[in-house]
């Protein structure tokens, strides 16, 4: 695994260091079923996704992290559809960490080819990367890929189990399977006799799984394609202990953590005398790694309850060393700006899209036909509602970890390495996640808990970060700066667009934390994602990405590069439309005419927002389009001016996802992504002084609240050729749509986030 990883590891298409040639044996080999050996008395594991007991308990194992996106419901529905059971009859369990639950779609999409590019070479690259996903066995939730990845796998798991159960019925009755039907959790014989699946399970366990099972056409679906009640809704409406934060074990001790607020810097000295005097404090432990580690120095306080641990941490007298990056926001932004300007002057950077000849197109351009702009965005925190936490126990040669994680197999391998226990004796107990947004794809909070478990003499230890620790030790959405230049043709349409984005490399940062021995060579397509892969047809079109050398920990933040490139690209498109005196929807329809799916979303959003209605004094509207994670998404935002500031009145979303397995959940995800994006317009920014993050809690890093929340109109469309995701695509276009609406209302073109730095919102 280590060697394969080193040669071929790739996230986001950035780090193919070697060839990706695996033997056919490795590629075709299935990972072992992780449920073997874990079943109860009388329970049969049909495959990694399904268990059935003799007394008819049907359990679906969901291999992805439930962080609000409704994945437990939709993945269960995929299996239930083919198995012929109702969702109410099924028990849902979060699957263990296992390579059998690999996500190949995430790597296919990470290959970085534009979603609309279905050329042979693009598809071949996707297929290759999907193979890498399978061989590595990476069980990850991210990139809005869960339903796409599970679409065949989990339906096939249900279908093969159904056919196996029919064969079991044949074995028990001697009746030919051709005359059998299945319905509501039972095989039905030609005479109407119902054999519940549970009564067939033991017999089925002795039968080889049939290999020639066909999936049902969508026209036969009873569950999929219709909105289902979420399987987790009652538990989440009754305060059930679902989350990592709620883990409660016998003899458990509690702990909290303080790492150097100058991220990655060392701990020079600590005096624990006062902390040890606090009632309930058991121990204060140096958490600095013995080997090189990106997290720098720090300590943890172990106590009999969380509050005592928090008080103890405050009482430790500590001296922190310097940060490995400029101490202030100004200094950091200067590095990014200088990187951008130098790369432009010297013609450097990774060209991620190039059509026509931009240089030539600008060479003879009349001044009045040129539009230019410079944009920037700040660092952002994920700020999940549930602060980072994990519970770990090291006892009897086994390592156990309880956590809400987006990357269970990475966490398993990382914790095994951390405590020196074999992977086979390392057990990850995945919980529900109180928000993820990319933050819980990191291993830090789990690694720290595992490290601490070495100090508690076999007792489980629950490590809870304070909100302050969480906010100031995030893996942030990076700051980015970009320059844009367009030339309009005689009809006012853009005949050339040249965009250049400078941003610290997310891939480099993630790799340094998670796999320090592997480099991150080559271009990082997260820098240009959302700009280089858009379905615009512009004759001369060039997008360049430049890595800025700033060593602040950064990571995947809902929609990743699309979160800033959506803003850059789509505000600049609005500038072009304005310069040409064109309607921004009409202009986009023209430039995306080759993609009817895109045009369809624009037409729909125009209808939802009543776009062509005459302008009203004191009201403004803006539009934007981003194709991200396979979902073609147009958003229109309507705003109004009040005495106290600008109010966001309505957000209209037209999103073509190709196939919506659960339309209500998809719509809720689009709304959620949009509110996440709008929140980033309303005051969110992470700033630095003395090397430390200055925003420490929700009082200084807030998000949208009820009183600010607009009305939503959402159309989930299904005309696109390929299925897309829904967890992230709502975020990128809502940000420029709001900025463009503010321009339409006030005439003020805001090219820097958050928008609230320049206008007041209410």
């Amino acid at each position, binding site marked *: 695994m280590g060697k394969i990883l080193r040669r071929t590891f790739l996230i986001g298409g950035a780090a193919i260091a070697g060839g990706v040639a695996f033997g056919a044996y490795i590629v075709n080999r299935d990972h072992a079923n992780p449920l073997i050996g874990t079943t109860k008395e009388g329970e049969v594991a049909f495959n990694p996704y399904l268990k059935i007991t003799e007394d008819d308990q049907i359990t679906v194992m969901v291999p992805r992290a439930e962080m609000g996106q409704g994945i437990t419901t939709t993945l269960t529905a995929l299996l239930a559809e083919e198995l012929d059971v109702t969702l109410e009859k099924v028990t849902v369990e979060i699957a263990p960490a296992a390579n059998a639950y690999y996500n190949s779609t995430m790597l296919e999409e990470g290959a970085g080819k534009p979603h609309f590019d279905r050329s042979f070479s693009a598809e071949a690259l996707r297929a290759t990367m999907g193979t890498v996903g399978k061989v590595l066995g990476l069980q990850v939730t991210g990139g809005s890929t869960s339903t796409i990845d599970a679409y065949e796998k989990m339906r096939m798991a249900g279908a093969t189990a159904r056919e196996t159960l029919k064969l079991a019925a044949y074995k028990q009755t001697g009746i030919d399977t051709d005359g059998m039907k299945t319905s509501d959790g039972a095989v039905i014989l030609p005479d109407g006799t119902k054999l519940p699946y549970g009564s067939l399970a033991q017999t089925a366990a002795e039968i080889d799984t049939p290999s020639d099972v066909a999936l049902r056409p969508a026209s036969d679906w009873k569950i999929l394609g219709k909105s289902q009640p*979420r399987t987790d809704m009652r538990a989440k409406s009754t305060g059930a202990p679902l989350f990592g934060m709620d883990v409660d074990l016998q003899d458990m001790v509690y702990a909290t953590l303080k790492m150097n607020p100058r991220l990655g810097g060392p701990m020079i000295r600590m005096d624990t005398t006062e902390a040890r005097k606090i009632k309930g404090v058991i121990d204060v432990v140096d958490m600095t790694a013995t080997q090189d580690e990106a997290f720098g120095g720090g300590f943890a306080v172990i106590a009999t309850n969380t509050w005592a641990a928090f008080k103890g941490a405050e009482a430790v007298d500590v001296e922190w060393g310097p940060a490995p990056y400029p101490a202030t926001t100004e200094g950091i932004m200067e590095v990014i700006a200088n990187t951008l300007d130098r790369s432009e002057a010297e013609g450097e950077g990774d060209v991620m899209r190039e059509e026509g000849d931009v240089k030539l197109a600008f060479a003879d351009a009349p001044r009045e036909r040129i539009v230019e702009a410079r944009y920037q965005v700040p660092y952002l925190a994920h700020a999940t509602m549930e602060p980072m936490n994990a519970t770990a126990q090291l006892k009897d040669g086994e390592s156990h970890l309880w956590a809400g994680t987006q990357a269970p197999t990475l966490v398993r391998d990382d914790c095994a390495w951390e405590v020196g226990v074999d992977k086979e004796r390392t057990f990850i107990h995945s919980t529900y996640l109180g928000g993820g947004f990319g933050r819980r794809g990191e291993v830090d909070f789990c690694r720290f808990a595992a490290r601490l478990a070495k100090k508690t003499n076999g007792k489980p230890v629950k490590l809870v970060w304070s909100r302050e620790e969480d906010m100031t030790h995030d893996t942030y959405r990076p700051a980015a700066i970009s320059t844009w230049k367009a030339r309009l043709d005689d009809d006012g349409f853009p005949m050339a667009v040249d965009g250049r984005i400078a941003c610290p490399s997310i891939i480099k940062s993630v790799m340094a934390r998670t796999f320090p021995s592997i480099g991150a060579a080559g271009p990082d397509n997260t820098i240009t994602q959302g700009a280089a892969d858009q379905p615009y047809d512009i004759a001369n079109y060039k997008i360049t990405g430049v890595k800025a050398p700033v060593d602040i920990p950064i990571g995947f933040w809902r929609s990743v590069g699309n979160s800033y490139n959506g803003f850059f690209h789509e505000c600049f498109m609005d500038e072009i439309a304005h310069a040409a005196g064109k309607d921004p929807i009409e202009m986009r329809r023209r430039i995306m005419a080759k993609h009817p799916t895109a045009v369809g979303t624009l037409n729909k959003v125009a209808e939802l927002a009543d776009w062509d209605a005459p302008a009203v004094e004191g009201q403004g509207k803006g539009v934007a389009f981003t194709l991200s994670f396979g979902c073609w998404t147009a958003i229109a935002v309507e705003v109004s001016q009040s005495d106290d500031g600008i109010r966001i009145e309505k957000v209209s979303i037209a999103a073509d996802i190709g196939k919506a397995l659960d339309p209500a959940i998809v719509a809720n995800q689009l709304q959620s992504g949009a509110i996440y994006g709008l929140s980033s317009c309303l005051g969110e920014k992470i700033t630095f002084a003395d090397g430390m993050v200055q925003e420490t*809690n929700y009082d200084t890093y807030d998000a949208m609240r009820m009183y600010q929340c607009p009305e939503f109109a959402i159309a989930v469309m299904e005309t696109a050729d390929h299925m897309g995701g829904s967890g992230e695509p709502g975020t990128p276009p809502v940000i420029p749509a709001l900025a463009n609406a503010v321009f339409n209302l006030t005439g003020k073109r805001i090219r820097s986030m958050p928008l609230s730095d320049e206008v007041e919102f209410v």
Partner: protein
Amino acid sequence: MKLTVNGTQMDLDAEPDMPLLWALRDLVGLKGPKFGCGIAACGSCTVMIDGVAQRSCVLALEDVDGEVTTIEGISNGETLHPVQQAWIENQVAQCGYCQSGQIMAAVALLDEVPNPTDEDINAAMTNLCRCGTYPQIRQAIKRAAELKSQTGGEA
């Protein structure tokens, strides 16, 4: 420290400055109230004290001067509180972490204002939700008001 939680009297071995939230979670074992911020900014820890919504993360045990109700104490066995029923009917929760606090804030609001306007809801529902479930919360509160008027107000 003496405390009455969901109708049960208890005597906790705790420091008087311990916030109610941590006493409930770590000592009593009630995980419904959630830790979100520790500074009363997000509302995930909302409980009711003598029927008034309070943020338990900043309320020291020594300052608790009434009966505490957590989300575990608002339903009547399997019969859920009308607010919880409305939450399920409107499929409000996404990640769900903030929803215990949202539900407790809504219960307190409807006890005081049986038919809240949008303005009432904006003023009372100041809890943070990072998943952005606000439109569904608003619908659910209005639905819960209907359910309460039909059932006479009690779960």
